[in-house]
């Protein structure tokens, strides 16, 4: 009797296993609020065992109507909205927007302003890459590397705070220049902090680049060849990792980048490991650029001296009527900066790639249309292609190497 039941149970379990284990595909949600989905994004995957057979990305959780909001504010106050695009490297966004409006106005920024813009853009690019590499390393298990990068990022944010008055929402650039001259102790602070950041980059290289756990997780994962990368619209470190040497700073040099000496690192296979290596090398190059900027920076004004564009000096505002009048004229509604009607497209090399601003002006004091080309958007649309036929665990390094920034993706 007993033996019979045992046999029966055994066969039943075996039947169940045979019937149920080669199951139909399982649907799994990664996100929207998952620790490895930095920002808020939802990745839906359909799994056969642990293999991904289908996937899709849902974006838009951080949509703030950037483009519509900008149409409702004046040319200068729109800079505040650009801070919130890529909130890890906001200065590049400020500079990109202001360059677009300056092209519309047909003005050139004084040398010192350009150099200060370039130096601070590169500092925030290092902060962006440090975040990307550190977070990607943390997600595959290297928590120490993450802490070291955050330490270095904090030092860079201190530099940004000294120059702009805020760590993240910098509001640094103005149309025609920058908001204020660099503080007098900025060079000393840079001389103190940038070598330490370089040490952190070297340590990061030592900790990760030849570590077998890291290589096993990153190499051969999520690779995109050059043709597909171009077809998807990749730019920035991901495109360069795929082998296309496209860098806006070199291909169409803007600001003072044509006077800088730096190299464009290019990968071969375009997998996560190449992206990591490209970012690591770019941090070194950015440190070199900051060094050159601070050595070459000339004395002089930082903003154009045009009463129709930049606010007058406080000295004039307090003492004479012309200054006071210009101050009111620039701030009052329907009286501020009024570029001629036209359209421009200006792109800068952001932390994740080509950040473009397409601006249409109808001659009034606020933009008729401001379209932002976010570098993240083409990267995120390629996630299903990158993680096809990979394991579930590979989603995390692929997504980490994209460095998706929600504010920029959803705008």
């Amino acid at each position, binding site marked *: 009797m007993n033996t019979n039941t045992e046999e029966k149970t055994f066969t039943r379990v075996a039947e169940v296993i045979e019937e149920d284990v080669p199951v139909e595909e399982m649907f799994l949600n990664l996100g929207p609020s998952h620790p490895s989905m930095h920002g808020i994004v939802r990745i839906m995957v359909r799994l056969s065992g642990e293999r991904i057979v289908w996937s899709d990305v849902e974006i838009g959780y951080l949509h703030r109507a950037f483009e519509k909001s900008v149409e409702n504010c004046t040319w200068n106050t729109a800079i*505040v909205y650009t801070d919130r695009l890529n909130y890890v490297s906001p200065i590049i966004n400020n500079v990109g927007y202001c360059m677009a409006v300056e092209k519309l106005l047909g003005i050139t920024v004084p040398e010192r302003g350009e150099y200060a813009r370039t130096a601070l853009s590169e500092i925030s690019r290092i902060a962006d890459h440090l975040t990307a590499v550190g977070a990607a390393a943390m997600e595959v298990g290297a928590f120490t590397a993450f802490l070291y990068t955050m330490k270095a990022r904090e030092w860079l944010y201190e530099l940004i705070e000294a120059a702009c008055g805020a760590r993240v929402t910098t*509001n640094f650039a103005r149309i025609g220049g920058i*908001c*204020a001259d660099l503080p007098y102790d900025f060079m000393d602070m840079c001389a103190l902090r940038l070598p330490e950041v370089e040490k952190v980059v070297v340590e990061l290289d030592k900790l990760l680049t030849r570590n*077998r756990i890291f290589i096993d997780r990153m190499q051969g994962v999520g690779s995109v060849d050059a043709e597909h990368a171009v077809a998807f619209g990749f730019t920035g470190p991901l495109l360069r990792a795929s082998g296309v040497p496209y860098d806006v700073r070199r291909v169409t040099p803007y600001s003072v980048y044509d006077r800088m000496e730096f190299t464009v690192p*290019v990968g071969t296979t375009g997998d996560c490991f190449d992206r990591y290596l490209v970012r690591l090398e770019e941090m070194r190059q950015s440190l070199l650029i900051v060094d050159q900027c601070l050595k070459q920076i000339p004395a002089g004004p930082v903003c154009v001296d045009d009463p129709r564009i930049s606010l007058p000096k406080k000295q004039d505002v307090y003492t004479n009527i012309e200054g006071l009048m210009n101050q009111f004229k620039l701030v009052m509604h329907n009286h501020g900066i009024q570029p001629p009607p036209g359209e421009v497209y200006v792109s800068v090399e952001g932390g994740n790639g080509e950040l473009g601003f397409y601006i249409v002006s109808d001659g009034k004091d606020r933009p008729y249309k401001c379209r932002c080309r976010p570098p993240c958007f083409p990267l995120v649309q390629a996630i299903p292609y990158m993680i096809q036929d990979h394991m579930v665990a590979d989603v995390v390094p692929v997504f980490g190497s994209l460095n998706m920034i929600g504010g920029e993706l959803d705008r």
Partner: protein
Amino acid sequence: MVSACPFFENQYSIKMPTIDYKKLSVPYQTSVQKVEMGLWEKLYYPEVTRGLLITSGHFVRNMMIHAAHMFGLAKNQRGAVTYQYPEERRPIHRRLRGRHRLTKKPDGSERCTACLLCETVCPTHCIYIVPEEHPDPTVEKHPRQYEIDILRCCFCGYCVEACPCDAIRMDTQVQELSNWDRTRMVYNKEYLMRDVAGPGAPPKDDPPIWWLK
């Protein structure tokens, strides 16, 4: 072709550069050093030991500095980069935009003339001013009510830049803006004119560094 922008003539005036990606090469191009998995990496332990040496080097160095602090030595070196926040504060750069304050005239009344420039320029519309005729006939206007809704403020500093009479500054360096009640986060004129005490208090009569162009 349907015109998207009816107010200017030369449609599609932007010439985008055509780039052939297959032939693209830029000066100073380098390729990253690809790491092949050799015997050294496959052995796994040497690299782990090297990583451990780095991390333990940090650990020992920081521990020695902390130990030296206990004996009153090496006070100028920091053992850890973290700050023990409520007791120990991060040194803040003087340019940091903190909570606003309204500056005062020597007689203690507000310097603001209620010109409404800060209210106009504010991107978040968080400033609300009710102007009023000043009782003193030599002064034209002054604000009867001056409110800043600090919950809406984005700390861009445009109000400080726009002010034509140095009436509002953001140099208090106060960052701890919290309250149990939302209605108390709307700061009125009296609160904004109060002298700031505590660790973030600015020195009296300091020059407005932020505005120096």
